């Protein structure tokens, strides 16, 4: 039997359906790959026994003719999703030993569709980071290396463990969450596909909150089709989430028609930022040409407030986080550091439990909401956000989707952007605007950098029009013909 880990979800689905192999076999191959991928540190918690049990149960269901849409497919789950009976950490020391007695809606949906959990994957602490260097459980390593260079690179973040697991073939797909680019940027850094759906498409219930008005779960996998398959099972209305939108979930796979003739694709001039590298710029131009060749109409558009998206985001997200993370106080779960009184216990627990980047953002957020500064920071940022959303609304009167680069660079080395947080924040420059507007976005691998690292292009769509995004993404993927794979150096 050939290496089952190299299959796409779509191919595995067909193989399972035909009886070419069982979910037990497919899962076993991935458990082997997961074990071998330890040098990448993608997983925080591996659950191989549960995976085997789930695969066995899946095979039994299939035998009874009760196969779900993801029946028997082994997946990795970002350790921000609460999983019943399985340690859930948010990659933070402060959630030490936390084992939820409930299952997030999105993962419950996946299990309901027959998927198998391999384990919980690493991330930036509380999803705050763009390089996976802030995890309490250590850095995640990108399976990709620069040509002729053995130095380790970051996988991007915050869904870095998800990206690394999928790119290293130790999971067929993974859940991610995207607050300002946390699915799309690591997808770009690791040569895989990642989608942030429209805000409200996937339930946030049971997902450890970072910034409530921005957080959105989404799928990460190796092809656009796989993403479409996964999203269909993850998405759906959830009465337990007041921001979940009650809309039917389309068959996203059906959107992959390969035909984009007559679609209008917007190219925002403001994304041509100062200092954008020539190779990113060139790749973007290639993308434009591919879509044009496929019959789309290319339209130059303007999103005038683009440059203000990052600073607005770095007020809004920390402000919400400062409140969302107040519940980590050492009382009901997780780490407790004793103190001389209640407040001392709180302050000591939170000082030891949170890492530097989380602390930095909690302080910024607390300050932005505090008396005398609320109007100047938080309120101002929310008004700027309204203008950014309005920019998109105007643009979508004239175009069906928008094409941009996903990230301003390829994956970089550890510590290369360590000193100045602002330099790190700039990673999200192309992903944050759509997050602020709640729009769907996908990153598709489109080429390699001069150093041999993957680069992604981003497609953005109208609210709840993931189908058009998938349709264009399918064409882009086809045209790019990205087949490069990292060498499996980590297997030693």
């Amino acid at each position: 039997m050939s290496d089952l880990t190299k299959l796409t979800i779509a191919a595995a689905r067909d193989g399972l359906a035909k009886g070419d192999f069982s979910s037990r076999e497919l899962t076993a191959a991935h458990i082997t790959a997961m074990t071998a991928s330890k040098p990448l540190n993608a997983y925080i918690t591996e659950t191989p026994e549960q995976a085997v049990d789930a695969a066995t149960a899946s095979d039994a269901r299939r035998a009874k003719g009760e196969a779900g849409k993801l029946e028997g497919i082994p997946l990795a789950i970002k350790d921000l999703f609460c999983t019943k009976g399985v340690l859930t950490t948010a990659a933070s020391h402060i959630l030490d030993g936390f084992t939820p007695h409930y299952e997030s809606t999105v993962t419950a949906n996946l299990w309901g569709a027959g998927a198998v959990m391999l384990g919980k994957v690493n991330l930036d602490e509380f999803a705050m980071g763009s390089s996976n260097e802030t995890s309490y459980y250590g850095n995640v390593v990108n399976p990709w290396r620069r040509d002729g260079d053995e130095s380790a690179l970051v996988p991007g973040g915050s869904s870095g463990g998800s990206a690394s697991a999928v790119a290293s073939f130790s999971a067929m797909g993974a859940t991610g969450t995207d607050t300002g680019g946390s699915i799309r940027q690591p997808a770009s850094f690791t040569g895989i596909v990642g989608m942030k759906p429209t805000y409200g498409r996937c339930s946030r219930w049971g997902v450890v909150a970072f910034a409530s008005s921005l957080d959105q779960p989404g799928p990460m996998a190796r092809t656009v089709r796989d993403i479409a398959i996964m999203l269909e099972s993850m998405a759906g209305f959830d009465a337990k989430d007041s921001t979940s939108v009650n809309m039917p979930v389309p068959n996203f796979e059906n959107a992959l028609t390969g035909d984009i003739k007559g679609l209008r694709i917007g190219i925002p001039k403001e994304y041509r930022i100062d200092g954008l590298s020539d190779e990113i710029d060139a790749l973007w131009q290639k993308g434009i040409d591919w879509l044009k060749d496929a019959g789309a109409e290319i339209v130059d558009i303007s999103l005038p407030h683009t440059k203000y998206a990052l600073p607005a985001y770095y007020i809004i997200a920390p402000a919400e986080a400062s409140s969302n993370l107040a519940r980590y106080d050492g009382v009901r779960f997780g780490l407790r550091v004793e103190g001389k009184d209640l407040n001392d216990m709180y302050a000591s627990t939170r000082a030891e439990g949170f890492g530097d980047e989380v602390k930095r953002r909690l302080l910024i957020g607390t300050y932005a909401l505090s008396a005398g500064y609320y109007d100047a920071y938080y309120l101002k940022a929310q008004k700027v956000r309204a203008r950014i959303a309005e920019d998109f609304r105007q643009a979508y009167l004239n175009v069906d989707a928008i094409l941009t680069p996903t990230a301003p660079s390829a994956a970089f080395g550890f510590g290369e952007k360590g000193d100045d947080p602002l330099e790190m924040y700039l990673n999200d420059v192309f992903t944050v605007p759509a997050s602020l507007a709640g729009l769907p976005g996908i990153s598709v691998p489109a080429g390699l950098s001069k150093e041999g690292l993957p680069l992604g292009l981003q497609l953005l769509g109208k609210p709840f029009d993931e189908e058009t995004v998938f349709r264009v993404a399918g064409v882009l993927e086809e045209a790019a013909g990205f087949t490069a794979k990292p060498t499996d150096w980590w297997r030693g």
Partner: protein
Amino acid sequence: MSLDKATVAKVANLARIKIEEKDLEPMAAELNNILGWVEQLGEVDTDNVEPMTSVAEMRLRWRADEVTDGGYVEDVVANAPGGEDGYFAVPKVIE
């Protein structure tokens, strides 16, 4: 607007994060670096713009008034680092 050491200490207290005296100054510098960069938001004309607190263009859904949850004290306190008899426990609070 620039944060001084005392403001950082005040904010850290509000956020209940203990910061050593020696770390206040460097933290103030880090935060000022970020806040300085955020100042550019002032360039955006936001007169008559309503703040956007949610992107979901829908009405708040209401739940029927039924008892559908609770009744599982063991699950609620299972992860607690302190407590007994179904209670959570914290260091004694003197009011």
